[in-house]
């Protein structure tokens, strides 16, 4: 019997078409991650501490000092979207550790021998990374409201902010996944993770306007997806916030970065189990 004849043999149950399988499988993977968070939310809670400190301490001090000129917008209003983007980045960037851990255990192998496509598996991981950041976003909104940030609370803006947060965090989680596939061990990953986060953060408009940066840093900021995430958030999250780039460009960059990273991750992911 050739494999072609075998392929024609009916399965015990009908399989959905490939596009439907992609969505179902990605959601299965994402939901597993969310179930784990529901069982043990401590990680989420500890990650919420950092943005609170940034807003309360860093933000309040610099706002009082009036050290950073942010035009019409008060500094705290300027900073809040940056802190939101930053907290999403920081929670996503160590996502790869969990993936290496799954490889060390053998859980990864289980997923890779299932018929699910590699792209659906990494998309599910990315989606989970993105959705986790929404919890962070909620924390930032509450703290921001308490310290008097002028938030836009219209439903359109809130939904748009959620989409930007998920897109950005999914992108950084995928970036983290790619790094994990390249470095392969937890020890190396921890080192690299630290080294990467800071430049991503400081070469963006998260805590100061691009216009204040020296030329070389501006150039870096312009190829940094975080800049576009912050830019979109700045016009969507606070009243009177102004974007540097058109919002369509912000979305375009985030979607493009995510898709490219997912394609790379899908290629590299199976190598982790070899």
């Amino acid at each position, binding site marked *: 019997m050739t494999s072609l004849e075998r392929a024609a043999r009916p399965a015990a149950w009908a399989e959905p078409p490939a596009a439907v399988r992609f969505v179902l499988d990605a959601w299965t993977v994402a939901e*597993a991650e969310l179930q784990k968070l529901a069982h043990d939310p401590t990680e989420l809670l500890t990650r919420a501490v950092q943005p609170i400190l940034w807003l309360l301490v860093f933000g309040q001090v610099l706002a009082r000092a009036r050290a950073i000129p942010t035009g019409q917008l008060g500094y705290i209003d300027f900073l809040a979207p940056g802190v939101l983007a930053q907290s999403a980045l920081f929670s996503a960037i160590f996502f790869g550790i969990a993936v290496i851990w799954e490889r060390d255990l*053998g859980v990864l192998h289980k*997923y890779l021998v299932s018929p699910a496509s590699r792209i659906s598996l990494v998309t599910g991981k990315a989606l989970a990374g993105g959705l986790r950041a929404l919890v962070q976003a909620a924390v930032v909104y509450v703290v921001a409201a308490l310290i008097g940030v002028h938030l836009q609370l219209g439903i359109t803006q809130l939904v748009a902010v959620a989409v930007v947060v998920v897109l950005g965090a999914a992108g950084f989680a995928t970036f983290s996944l790619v790094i994990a596939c390249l470095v392969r061990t937890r020890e190396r990953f921890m080192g690299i993770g630290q080294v990467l986060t800071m430049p991503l953060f400081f070469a963006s408009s998260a805590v100061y306007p691009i216009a204040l940066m020296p030329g070389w840093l501006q150039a870096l900021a312009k190829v940094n997806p975080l800049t576009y995430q912050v830019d979109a958030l700045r016009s969507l999250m606070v009243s009177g916030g102004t974007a540097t780039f058109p919002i369509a460009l912000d979305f375009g960059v985030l979607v493009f970065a995510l898709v490219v990273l997912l394609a790379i991750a899908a290629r590299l992911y199976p190598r982790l189990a070899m």
Partner: protein
Amino acid sequence: MPQAIETRELTRRFGRVTAVDALSLAVRPGEVFGLLGPNGAGKTTTIKMLITLLPPTSGSATVSGYDVIADQRLVRRSIGYVPQLLSSDGALSARENLDISGRLYHIPSADRRTRISEALEFMGLADVGDNLVRTFSGGMIRRLEIAQAMLHRPEILFLDEPTVGLDPVARRAVWEHVRRLRDREGTTILLTTHYMDEAAELCERVGIMHLGKLVALGTPESLAAEVGPAATLDDVFTHYTGSDLDEGGTYRDVARTRRTARRLG
């Protein structure tokens, strides 16, 4: 009837190490086949090539009639796999673990629920189905993993060192479940082990691997008879691999096995 598993000159190199060296082997449908060998013999590498986790350096293999390189998705649909490591997610409950597996194989939801309850019952885990797996003993985890790998009723089940690190009672329980599964489903089973008693207990035929090569093949009885009148499978093993079971393997292999054992135990 085609072979359940067939390899032709299957080879895998890691740098200068030839982990699997021109392995040619056939496993019949419905058979329980044991791949024996000391740590580092190439058993896990062989399995990884058969289940599409690792591309061969050269040679070819079919699993359930499908080519492991050309028909990867079809191979994956036909097999279940329980890794040497730990494949159930400790941060999820047994039921959630099973549900994930069922969904990745697109078992319709009503059918899936029935199968999950049945699987938990069959494996003696019905009372703890909603507990987190990290609270389970090593033997319970192994039984859950086997249930998870069998949920979609694969034609071929791969078990890599299924009882490493388990205490004698838990090992017997795993053996018992493997035998019942085979009787009930007629599943072809390829298992690796470096325990001779396990091979003698479970396997209809065994292949002994040493340094990536197949050095002996046959029923446990025929192999023993070839070596000597009162020979046991242990003697067969020493005869062909020139090593006692506790020798062999690199530091890395030993570290890996111990780590697994500790996690399971």
